[in-house]
């Protein structure tokens, strides 16, 4: 077993394994450990460095530098430039996410069967079985009452008063102590990101891990994938190091994310009609509530409260989200003395968000410097959902006792009182009026039976190729309406079990 970190320019590095897994996030780590437990030798090849909790940054700037993909600079090319947020580190986006675990809703499998001819019965049972396993292994727990913090408690109160379904989140954490630092990586080691469990387990089962090793292309012999090629990249200065080639005796599993997987397959020469298409997301944006008493949202779990009451109609998920002062400062509108007066209220602010179960879809292309280029714009129907979501969030703030809300929408007043809620109902439908982000991403290499409309089959195998699989968010052909990590892991486990059966 061996870990190979950055290697400076010099002789080519070569290794061999039964399976090469590209990416070590939710999908890649799950794929790797499932294969390793089945007795296969696995090499994980990961673009980012391997950081332990002691290496994690503390500040948001440090997180952008050390954990985020391209400093978080990937944005949608469309009407609005919304950041597409992902990590580039061993453990992938599980290192920076909030670890919320939600089982795949049953209606998702129904839809996949109806629209993509993906057999429901076997898939649903298998995915749920893997999700059960992940819940046990990654210690899914409800946020402990003592770690909720005031923002999450207020949201519970608001939801209760409005009498809609709402709950304390269940997350992949071992006794979360509510430090509110999930976005910067959990220094306390409570969050069960995959760099702490499935990646080291794969290594201990005789595998290899190459870190700081972005794959440039998959190598083929005819239509059989036989390995991956790239150059190490210095994690600090981003200089190119030695070339590497990892040979795969049985298969290459692509799990580089919904943006990087399609881009990687495109630059490897795949010419599927559906490759890079059907990119989807749950775009999210938030409203601050301003409370009389300090909320101190950075004390308590980063995200601890949610509601799926509006998941089916109009298609929304509501959540709390604590962001640190350095991000709040950029998020409140205005500058100069106006801004200083606004940030003074920081301790009294609570940020709650809505994630839209958007039906709009876009495309991913391999762009300049091997960076994915994402074309995506929300259509009018999805923008209406977003606006409704912000209205619901604001309403919940008022129900919880907020004296004002700050919607952060261009063209609207800076803040609104309880008697001004109707203003949000008429908020603009132009995406450029909103500061939103994309953090739940899907598609680009969608699965399905039809080779013309899908890249891989319902077992993750790329149509028309041998020994080439995809096992990450990019295979998901629809939105989910819930947080995706559980579904991604369930699918990756299912695909790999099928592969070695």
């Amino acid at each position: 077993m061996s870990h190979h970190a950055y290697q400076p320019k010099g002789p080519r590095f070569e290794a061999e394994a039964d399976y090469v897994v590209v990416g070590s996030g939710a999908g890649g780590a799950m794929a790797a450990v499932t294969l390793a437990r089945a007795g296969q030798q696995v090499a994980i090849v990961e673009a980012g460095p391997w950081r332990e909790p002691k290496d994690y940054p503390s500040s948001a700037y440090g997180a952008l530098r050390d954990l985020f993909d391209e400093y978080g600079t990937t944005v949608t090319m469309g009407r609005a430039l919304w950041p597409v947020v992902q990590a580039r580190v061993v453990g992938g986006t599980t290192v920076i996410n909030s670890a919320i675990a939600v089982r795949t809703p049953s209606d998702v499998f129904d839809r996949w069967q109806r629209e993509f001819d993906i057999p429901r019965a076997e898939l649903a049972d298998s995915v749920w079985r893997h999700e059960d396993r992940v819940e046990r292994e990654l210690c899914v727990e409800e946020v402990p009452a003592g770690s909720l913090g005031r923002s999450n408690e207020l949201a519970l109160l608001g939801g209760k008063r409005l009498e809609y379904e709402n709950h304390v989140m269940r997350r992949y954490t071992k006794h979360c102590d509510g430090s509110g630092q999930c976005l910067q990586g959990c220094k306390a080691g409570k969050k069960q990101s995959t760099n702490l469990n499935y990646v080291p387990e794969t290594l201990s089962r005789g595998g290899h891990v190459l870190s700081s090793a972005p794959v440039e292309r998959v190598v083929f012999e005819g239509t059989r994938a036989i390995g991956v090629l790239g150059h190490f990249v210095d994690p600090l200065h981003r200089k190119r190091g030695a070339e590497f080639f990892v040979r795969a005796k049985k298969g290459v599993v692509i799990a580089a994310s919904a943006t990087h997987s399609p881009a990687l397959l495109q630059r490897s020469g795949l010419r599927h009609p559906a490759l890079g298409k059907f990119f989807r997301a749950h775009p999210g944006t938030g409203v601050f509530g301003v409370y009389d008493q300090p909320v101190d949202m950075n004390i308590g779990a980063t995200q601890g409260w949610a509601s799926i009451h509006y998941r089916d109609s109009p298609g929304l998920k509501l959540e709390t989200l604590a962001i640190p002062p350095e991000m709040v400062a950029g998020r409140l509108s205005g500058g100069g003395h106006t801004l200083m007066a606004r940030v003074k209220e920081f301790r009294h602010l609570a940020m709650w968000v809505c994630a839209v179960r958007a039906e709009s879809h876009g495309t991913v292309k391999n762009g300049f410097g091997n960076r994915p280029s994402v074309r995506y714009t929300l259509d009018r129907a999805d923008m209406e959902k977003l606006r409704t979501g912000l209205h619901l969030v604001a309403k919940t703030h008022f129900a919880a006792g907020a004296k004002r809300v700050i919607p952060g929408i261009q063209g609207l007043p800076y803040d609104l009182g309880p008697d001004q809620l109707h203003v949000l109902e008429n908020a603009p439908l132009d995406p450029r009026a909103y500061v939103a982000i994309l953090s739940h991403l899907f598609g680009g290499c969608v699965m399905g039976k039809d080779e013309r409309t899908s890249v891989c089959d319902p077992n993750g195998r790329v149509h028309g190729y041998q020994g080439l699989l995809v096992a990450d968010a990019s295979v998901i052909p629809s939105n989910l309406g819930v947080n995706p990590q559980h579904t991604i892991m369930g699918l990756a486990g299912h695909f790999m079990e099928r592969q070695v059966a």
Partner: protein
Amino acid sequence: MVAIFPGGSGLPGIVECDLDGFLDRFFQEAALALKLGLVAGAVLYQLSPLLTVGLPVPAFLLSEAQRERHLNRLLSHPIYLLRQACFLLKTVAGLCWGSHPSVRALYALPPYPPDPGSCRST
């Protein structure tokens, strides 16, 4: 950046939050796209008072009140790309200002330990 976080309302300005040290680190470490975006935002801010306050002078020649008006109009400008460029500048400034120990202390938060930047080499 100084115009965005000038200090006041009992809070320190960005100059007192080690802006120089932050910018040194930023220009050594950040991705090229981000550095270019920051420079573009700063240039735009300096050169655009004509668009916001109708004065054909660079922003540094404006009075404090004019500068404040210029900045706020730019940040909410109807042309999306103009306000986005300035928003990026403000976001980066926020990363510096909001993470400084003196600001965190005022928000009852402990100082951040340094960002080690380390990783596993074996």
